[in-house]
């Protein structure tokens, strides 16, 4: 009898706690936004910077009372899934998002994962924001993918032209990891370099993604003596080692990439040898960062102990999703409404100084607006920090 009473009391207490708890906790309804990307293995830095950017921004929004969309203020919840850079896992992740009723997902981080999830996303009514470059993902009849950054075929020509005009670069060599993303970026870079009249002296040297010593890899490339060495699609983990090996082999020319990098990683891994390294970044360099961007960096650092410069770009996707939903609240459950709004959407860019705006672009590359207008900020690494080389826009 006593035991039965105890059980009844426990159940009642648990129910009361859950009701009371939910009343206190859920002041606002929750809007779930998904992330499907790689947060483990050699490319973990790419996805983790995504996930942490979203979590830091969501925590900031929630702390400020939520995000108002239409007449409702939402708390933002980030639902994450590690696809381990495996397309099969990426599909499973997107299916999980569908089961949770999520319509907006950031990721995946790589080409094959982004291509694999397309059928699921289109069938389940999910808009997704990959960091992958194949044009067919964003060109009609594809409808639900929105490129979350600047593609190499957009940044590469701008960088090569700048280096040709300003630094007198005449010859270029490409090195890429033996994976689909870096290889396709290399091919795009070779095409762009040739179109600009640059001599491509080496474009067939590749390396295993888990290579730890690049001296043997780069030795044949250095013999071609290029003015510019392009590290196509290089991951932040490999960039310092490649730079270091190239410099130690006596390379005196310019080294560049079209991917985002992290200044701390370059400083620790290559030190002064990384000075002059050109990469694509976002909006945290002092020249262009707004107060909001500075606060984001501070909050991210407080939350995770250390900022990742890749987040300069990755802070944008969640902001675009929320701002677009704010422009048309019907998009919360209806991605067709979201897509319609994308064509005319414009809002102030909170992360950049001046009158920069957030809008969807991509008409030139994809024939439809399926890319977020992240500023094309070309950085040069110097003594432990990035300096802005030039800023451009993409359409």
């Amino acid at each position, binding site marked *: 009898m006593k035991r039965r009473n105890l059980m009844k009391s426990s159940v009642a207490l648990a129910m009361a706690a859950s009701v009371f708890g939910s009343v206190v906790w859920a002041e606002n309804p929750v809007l779930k936004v998904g992330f499907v990307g790689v947060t483990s293995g*050699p*490319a973990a830095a790419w996805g983790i910077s995504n996930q942490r950017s979203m979590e830091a921004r969501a925590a900031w929004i929630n702390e400020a009372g939520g995000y108002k969309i239409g007449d409702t203020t939402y708390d933002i919840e980030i639902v994450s899934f590690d696809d381990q850079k495996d397309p099969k896992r990426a599909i499973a992740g997107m299916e999980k998002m569908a089961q949770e009723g999520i319509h907006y997902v950031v990721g995946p981080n790589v080409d094959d994962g982004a291509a694999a999830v397309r059928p699921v996303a289109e069938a389940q009514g999910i808009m997704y924001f990959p960091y992958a470059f194949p044009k067919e993902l964003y060109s009609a009849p594809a409808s639900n993918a929105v490129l979350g950054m600047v593609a190499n075929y957009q940044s590469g020509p701008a960088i090569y032209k700048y280096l040709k005009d300003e630094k007198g670069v005449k010859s270029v060599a490409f090195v890429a990891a033996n994976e689909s993303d870096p290889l396709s970026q290399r091919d795009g870079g070779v095409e762009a370099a040739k179109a600009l009249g640059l001599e491509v002296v080496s474009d067939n040297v590749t390396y295993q993604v*888990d290579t*730890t010593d690049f001296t043997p890899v780069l*030795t044949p490339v250095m013999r071609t003596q290029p003015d510019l060495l392009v590290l196509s699609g290089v991951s932040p983990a*490999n960039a*310092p080692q490649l730079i270091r090996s190239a410099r130690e082999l006596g390379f005196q020319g310019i080294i560049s990439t079209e991917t985002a990098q992290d200044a701390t*990683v370059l400083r620790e891994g290559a030190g002064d040898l990384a000075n002059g390294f050109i990469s694509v970044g976002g909006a945290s360099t002092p020249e262009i960062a707004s107060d909001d961007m500075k606060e984001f960096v501070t909050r991210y650092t407080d939350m995770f102990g250390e900022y990742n410069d890749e987040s300069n770009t990755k802070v944008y996707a969640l902001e675009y999703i929320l701002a677009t939903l704010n422009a048309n609240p019907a998009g919360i459950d209806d991605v067709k409404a979201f897509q319609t709004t994308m064509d005319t959407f414009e809002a102030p860019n909170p992360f950049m100084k001046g009158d920069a705006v957030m809008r969807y672009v991509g008409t030139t590359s994809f024939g439809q607006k399926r890319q977020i207008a992240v500023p094309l900020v070309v950085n040069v690494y110097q003594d432990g920090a990035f300096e802005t080389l030039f800023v451009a826009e993409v359409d």
Partner: protein
Amino acid sequence: MEQILANGIYLGAQYAMIALGLTLIFALMNVLNFAHGQMYVLGGFVTYTFYGQLGWPFVIALLASCITLAVLGALIERFLFAPVIRRSNREESTMLLAAGLAFLFDALILLIFGEKQRGVPKIINGVFNWDFRLIMPYDRILICVLAILSIVTFILFMQYSKTGRALRALAQDRTAAQLMGVNVARYSMIGFALGAMLAGLVGGLLVTITGVNLGMGGPTSIKAFMMVMIGGAGVISGAIAGGIILGFMEAIGLAVLSQYGDITYLLIFVSLMVFLAIRPQGLMGKPWG
């Protein structure tokens, strides 16, 4: 040619060191330690913390890596592997435990050290350049010499010390060693600690060259298993031979085949499959195990 030879020796020495710890643990306990790569990564992070972050002398940081991994290895053996081996005759139990440990280490490394690639200041500056026929940074030469010295020291230790003899006896025949008075439980723990310490040592040495990140563990384990399979599982000399062979295959492939794209590892894997089909026990392994 000189460059290929130098790269081969350098890669071979570091690979042999990585494989040594793995094969030692396998020889002593019949455990396929899937977490060996993660132990290597942990060793790199310990050196990174003491040398790169706190500014301690490199040698002290390297010692800290060795001690940390040795203690960790001893604890893992005593509280995880030993009870599992005692209670289960199924080999997959220890394999699953090792795989679980690998995931655990990955998660802990992410929590403690973050997702970024980490690097440390060079321990010695400058590049040896022999008329552009042979280019090798001095720090690589130093690490290569240290790796070879470590391997020689390890062989001498195994050959002539009391502990080394006991470990070899244990590897040859566990029951016979026990009957001869070898404290099996104690030396199993020492052997596992020694294997983990070797992983920490090579991780600490190579962080000065390659840096370290949390994703390096899995690929390192795979390479270590390849070397052990080439040389023969559980045979110390086999692991050294496997490491040197893999190092030279990689150096030759990268130099000769680079114009055909990245087919070096494709050919290495194909060669390994053909080799194992002909000699499944590896170069120096025994067909009966």
